[in-house]
């Protein structure tokens, strides 16, 4: 196993900006610049720029591309129009999750998949093995990715772009120039705010990055690290692979049944998932709010109110800067998953009161 940390094309820019760099999924990434809470609030109130170039991109083309994707992914790629994006999953035959991803339809017989950074090698082996018949290309290293998120993202990207970005609907994309750079402009994100994810050539990424921060200075645009990316997505209850979903979790218990389309025909994992659908999942991923401000972190045990034996487990948890409470996601038995159910979370040997709450924790403001 190669243990050397990889760097994105923006590594030098992050160091120069004084970012705190940390290892993340095999990459050396900025966890914060000015501070997680400040960066989080900048995205909710204005606009922030994220380097997500560590994410992986695969292209697949040919007459067999659609059939290969229909077999590999859980969502219905047949329903995807050119210029449209779809959230989906790769699953194992037993229904466990290989990865979550987005699928872009670039042309009639050409698609792009965006996968999690820490899963690039595993996913590449998986699609190569199970996506036979189509032509695959791993373009991860050649591709830079910058997310521009927040209520002022449309104005910022629009000002630098030669296409009318106001016409790009949610989960749609267009191609054009942004700050003079050839860009795939995708109206997607991982924050719950309006915004874009900008795919560019690796070599063009530093130029685009500095142009965005420069042009957005008047609106308070700031670079945002992985720390705030995590708190922003957690407030929206967006799943994080490796925390909330992995090879041991079923899409239905994770609340991702809406991207599993059994009616489209056979796909890897379908039988196992449909078996769970018939009986109902034994456990569910729920939103949890702590009574005090102590943080329930990944791996902490969940107990029933007033009891000691564990019934579930925290998968993600943090202080939510917008909700101003300690929030978490947890797998609990379906019988204890109803909103309002009192629970306890074992924190440093002490049971702290918590409650199942409605999600998202913070209202989504994506452009629907």
């Amino acid at each position: 196993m190669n243990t050397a940390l990889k760097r994105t094309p923006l590594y030098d820019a992050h160091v120069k900006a004084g970012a705190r760099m940390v290892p993340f999924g095999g990459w050396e990434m900025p966890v914060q610049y000015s501070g997680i809470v400040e960066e989080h609030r900048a995205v909710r109130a204005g606009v922030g720029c994220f380097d997500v170039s560590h994410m992986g991109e695969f292209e697949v083309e040919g007459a067999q591309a659609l059939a290969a994707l229909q077999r590999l992914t859980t969502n219905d790629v047949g329903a995807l129009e050119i210029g449209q994006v779809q959230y989906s999953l790769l699953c194992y035959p037993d229904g466990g999750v290989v990865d979550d991803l987005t699928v872009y339809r670039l042309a009639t017989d050409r698609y792009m998949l965006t996968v999690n950074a820490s899963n690039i090698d595993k996913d590449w082996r998986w699609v190569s093995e199970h996506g036979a018949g189509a032509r695959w290309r791993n373009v991860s290293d050649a591709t830079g990715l910058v997310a521009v998120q927040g209520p002022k993202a449309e104005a910022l990207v629009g000002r630098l772009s030669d296409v009318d970005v106001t016409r790009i609907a949610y989960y749609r994309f267009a191609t054009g120039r942004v700050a003079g750079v050839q860009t795939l402009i995708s109206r997607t994100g991982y924050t719950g705010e309006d915004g874009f994810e900008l795919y560019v050539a690796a070599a063009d990424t530093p130029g685009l990055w500095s142009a965005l921060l420069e042009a957005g200075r008047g609106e308070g645009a700031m670079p945002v690290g992985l720390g705030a990316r995590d708190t922003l997505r957690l407030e929206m209850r967006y799943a994080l692979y490796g925390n909330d979903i992995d090879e041991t979790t079923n899409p239905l218990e994770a609340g991702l049944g809406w991207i599993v389309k059994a009616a489209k025909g056979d796909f890897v994992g379908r039988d196992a998932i449909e078996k769970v659908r018939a009986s109902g999942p034994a456990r569910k991923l729920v939103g949890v709010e702590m009574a005090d401000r102590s943080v329930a972190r990944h791996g902490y045990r969940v107990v029933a109110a007033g009891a000691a034996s564990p019934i579930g487990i925290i998968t993600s948890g943090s202080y939510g800067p917008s909700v101003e409470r300690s929030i978490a996601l947890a797998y609990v038995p379906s019988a204890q998953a109803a909103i309002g159910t009192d629970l306890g979370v074992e924190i440093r040997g002490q049971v702290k009161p918590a409650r199942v709450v409605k999600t998202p924790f913070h209202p989504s403001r994506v452009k629907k």
Partner: protein
Amino acid sequence: MANIPSDLKYTREHEWAKREGDRVRVGITHFAQEQLGDVVFVELPKVGAKVTAHQAFGVVESVKAVSDLFAPVSGEVIETNAELPQKPETVNKDPYGKGWMIIVKPSNAGELEQLLTAQQYEEFVAQGGGGH
């Protein structure tokens, strides 16, 4: 650059201690709060609790991490900062002032003298500081 008041004593775990008559006020250093990032939760002992030098007396949590708080001196907790549970960010804003954590009545006066001086702590931090 370093914000290390010369009138305080320091631990290698990045707490500060200040003699106030026969009591010792305790908090975490500027360096510690900077390393932690945004503090979101502080757990302190109750008044009357006994603390032991170099052993954990409480916990501070930032968005990303949990860290134990270590007592600079042994003794009895006679006051805690009642503001911190509601305003943990005070630790970031004013670590040597309003962000103080506990006041201890020491049981062994000699322990305070064994702590690092400001100059020694500054050198310790400059050499990497061992993390919090």
